[in-house]
């Protein structure tokens, strides 16, 4: 099996990682050479293991999948980087593509599809889940010609659309749980977004965040985008 495709799995959910490792590892011509639970660990293993393909989750502690994409593409250029995420609505699609991801896939794939897409990316194909391709097409169609995609200006904090949406709900007084229900995402994901937004805005808590939203009117920015 000298020419087996060597795969590094990077995902912070150990059960999902084990599930994928078992499925992929059973396939002829595919071998899982390493597993990491965050982007930084993934980057280190990409250096030491030199995988052909890195499957990267997006939302992870320590270093997320987008930053890991940038670093791995920069430092281990022979590795193909494929994002594997839960939602086509996640905010990181354009950043990951700009940083050189070779693929952007949803976790709702069937196992056989994943095997085939891993083989395809090694053949230098770009792999996208249909829902992701659909979102890309839609965003480009709706964007005025020549305008760049969601580029933050250097003078203001670069909140993602999702973070803006969530901070507005925070300002409305909703709890993480209520926001999760409203947006059909988990409470943990809401918590991550709130944490990231607070960090970017250099705020310490939700009350400051609510005051910030009222003062700076994030809603206007959201409304004027896209």
């Amino acid at each position: 099996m000298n020419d087996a495709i060597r795969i590094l799995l990077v995902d912070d959910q150990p059960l999902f990682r084990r599930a994928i490792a078992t499925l992929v590892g059973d396939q002829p011509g595919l071998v899982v050479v390493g597993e990491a639970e965050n982007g930084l660990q993934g980057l280190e293993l990409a250096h030491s293991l030199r995988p052909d393909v890195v499957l990267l989750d997006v939302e992870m502690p320590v270093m997320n999948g987008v930053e890991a994409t940038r670093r791995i593409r920069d430092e281990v250029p022979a590795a193909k980087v494929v994002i594997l995420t839960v939602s086509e609505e996640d905010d990181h699609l354009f950043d990951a593509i700009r940083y050189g991801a070779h693929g952007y896939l949803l976790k709702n794939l069937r196992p056989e599809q994943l095997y085939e897409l891993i083989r395809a990316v090694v053949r230098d194909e770009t792999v996208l889940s249909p829902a992701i391709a659909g979102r890309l097409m839609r965003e480009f169609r709706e964007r005025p010609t020549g305008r760049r995609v969601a580029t933050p200006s250097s003078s203001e904090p670069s909140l993602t659309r999702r973070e803006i949406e969530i901070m507005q709900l925070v300002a409305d007084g909703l709890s993480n749980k209520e926001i999760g229900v409203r947006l059909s995402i988990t409470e943990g994901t809401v918590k991550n977004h709130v944490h990231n937004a607070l960090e970017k805005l250099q705020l310490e808590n939700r009350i400051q965040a609510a005051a910030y939203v009222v003062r700076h009117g994030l809603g206007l920015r959201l409304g004027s985008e896209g």
Partner: protein
Amino acid sequence: MPRNARRVVILYAHPLLGEGLARILRGDPSLTIEAVHVEDLEAAATVLGDEPDVIVMERGALQASDLLALAPAALLIDVGLDGGSSWAYHRDELSPLPEDIFNTIRRCAARTRRAARSCKPRAPHGTAPLPS
């Protein structure tokens, strides 16, 4: 396959998770595993009606209480893709008699902490409370 193999049903929304768990668990000869996508309602109804011992459900796919109504004897384990904790639920039937209910409340109140601790690592049929 041993005749007394325990029946495990996996209800998944993400095939990579559900089929992956099935592949892992099929390595255990004491278990029979059926993995079904939650949107395949007919198949799900069939496997649930066949008295599974354990149901593994992907979080958010279905209501725990609904599942245990369909398969009352099963232990339900809820796992998620979001990296949070997993949970085990077990349903005990009580009579409608007030005394039965009050006795159960008192008994469980007295031992909840210990029972919750003890059922996690070993006994599959523990007494984790079912959310209403």
